[in-house]
């Protein structure tokens, strides 16, 4: 009789899962909300860099820091008057080399370099991975808004109605 009971409970568990919420994240359509606070309370993220052309003075400390790690940063000239940056040189980052250690962000005295939650950096070409200062200055696209929720009975991705703007430090 206990055998029959175990069969019934097996079938029952099958039926029980029919109406459970899926925890699958339908990736290209909805993206995960990226939570900050891994290493940087200020910036909070470890994705692509964003460069503030107003704050950058062209001191090259980020390049010096990167030289011992990934050699991803190279200072390049950008035409146009910039009052703080007399030499008018700005970091250019090659994401083919970058290891996202964030030391350049640590080293930046003027908080000109910060990191964003943008992680979809795949490209068809090596050249496309080299981000020039102008490209780095562009603000990243809005991050995903699906939030992972764990309840007593199920775990699922909850999608808030309003997509919040990402905070840039």
């Amino acid at each position, binding site marked *: 009789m206990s055998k029959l009971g175990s069969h019934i409970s*097996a*079938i029952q*568990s*099958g*039926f029980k*899962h*029919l*109406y*459970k919420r*899926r*925890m*699958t994240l*339908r990736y290209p359509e909805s993206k995960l909300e990226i939570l900050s606070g891994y290493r940087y309370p200020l910036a909070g993220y470890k994705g692509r860099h964003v460069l503030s052309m107003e704050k950058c003075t062209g001191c090259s400390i980020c390049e010096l820091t990167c030289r011992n790690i990934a050699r991803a940063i190279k200072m390049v000239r950008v035409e146009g008057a910039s009052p703080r940056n007399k030499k008018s040189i700005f970091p250019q980052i090659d994401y083919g080399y970058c290891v996202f250690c964030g030391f350049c962000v640590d080293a930046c005295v003027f908080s000109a370099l910060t990191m964003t939650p943008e992680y979809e950096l795949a490209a068809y070409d090596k050249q496309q991975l080299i981000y020039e200062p102008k490209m780095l200055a562009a603000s990243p696209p809005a991050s995903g808004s699906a939030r992972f929720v764990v309840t007593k009975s199920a775990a699922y991705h909850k999608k808030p109605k309003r997509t919040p703007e990402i905070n840039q430090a």
Partner: protein
Amino acid sequence: MLGLTEPLSNLLQILVFPGLGFALTFVLFMVWYERKLLAKVQVRVGPLYAGRFEGILQPIADFVKLLFKEIIVPKQADRFLFMLAPTFMMALSVSILALIPLSPSNVIADSNVAILVIIAVLSLSPLAIVVAAWASNNKYSLIGGLRALHQTTSYAIPLSLSVLGVVLMSGSFSLMSIVESQRNAWFIMLQPLGAIVFFLAALAELERVPFDIPEAETEVVMGWETEYSGINYGIIMTAAYVKFYALAVLFTELFLGGWLGPEPVPPALWTIIKTFFVITLMMIPRGVYPRLRIDQMLRLGWTRLLPLSLVNIIISLVAVSFMA
């Protein structure tokens, strides 16, 4: 019906409603439904992108894909039998449909010995499988084919014996009169044993989980279907699903009162609704159970289901003699 001449309306019935066209459409739906249901049981999402609603056109996409794939015939295979076997299988499955009415007005052929013929056709299917297995000239095919032979022949006996109880109670081999004799009580209430035996034997006959020993992919690749590719494989799958549909309708009509139901819903729809329920019940084990071993399967068939179906016959004999 419909004011058409007799042969034309017969042809319509064979090709469109209770017959082939409806069955194949239903089979397409069943494939989607099974994938979706199993996905739900296993906390997945299942087909999603083909079609507007939850990937409902996925089976059609798969079918088109199979149509475009190359049909590969192994060098050592018996080419004629190899190509013949899927057609043979499809013919066997479809011929069951002719004898299963969906409602009193949707009948292709009502015979006095309908159930006997259906059982006879069902017991021919191991032959088709063995032909396919042998013609493939592949060790996995052959092993799978012999497993299928063991399984289908040993489960055909409890299957037919469990039907016998119903036949004794209704006093007829014709499905029409069997359904009509369930007006007072469905046979699942009168002989639950027979219903359980029929259900399990049908699962085994269809080679569905937990009885999918012939096509156990962890052991014998894909069993007797190993060498089939392209549309040949598609035909084999369709034949299996048509058989699945036919046996589900048969279960509905033998034990669940067929088209009997409250009035506003048309009788054919009642059959389909009940069939849908039976199909769901037959699919759920696939998401829940592991595969039986071959000796467990045989032991279940010969030492549990066979005595149970005999007990069921005795009970129904006693009941019939008391009623008489």
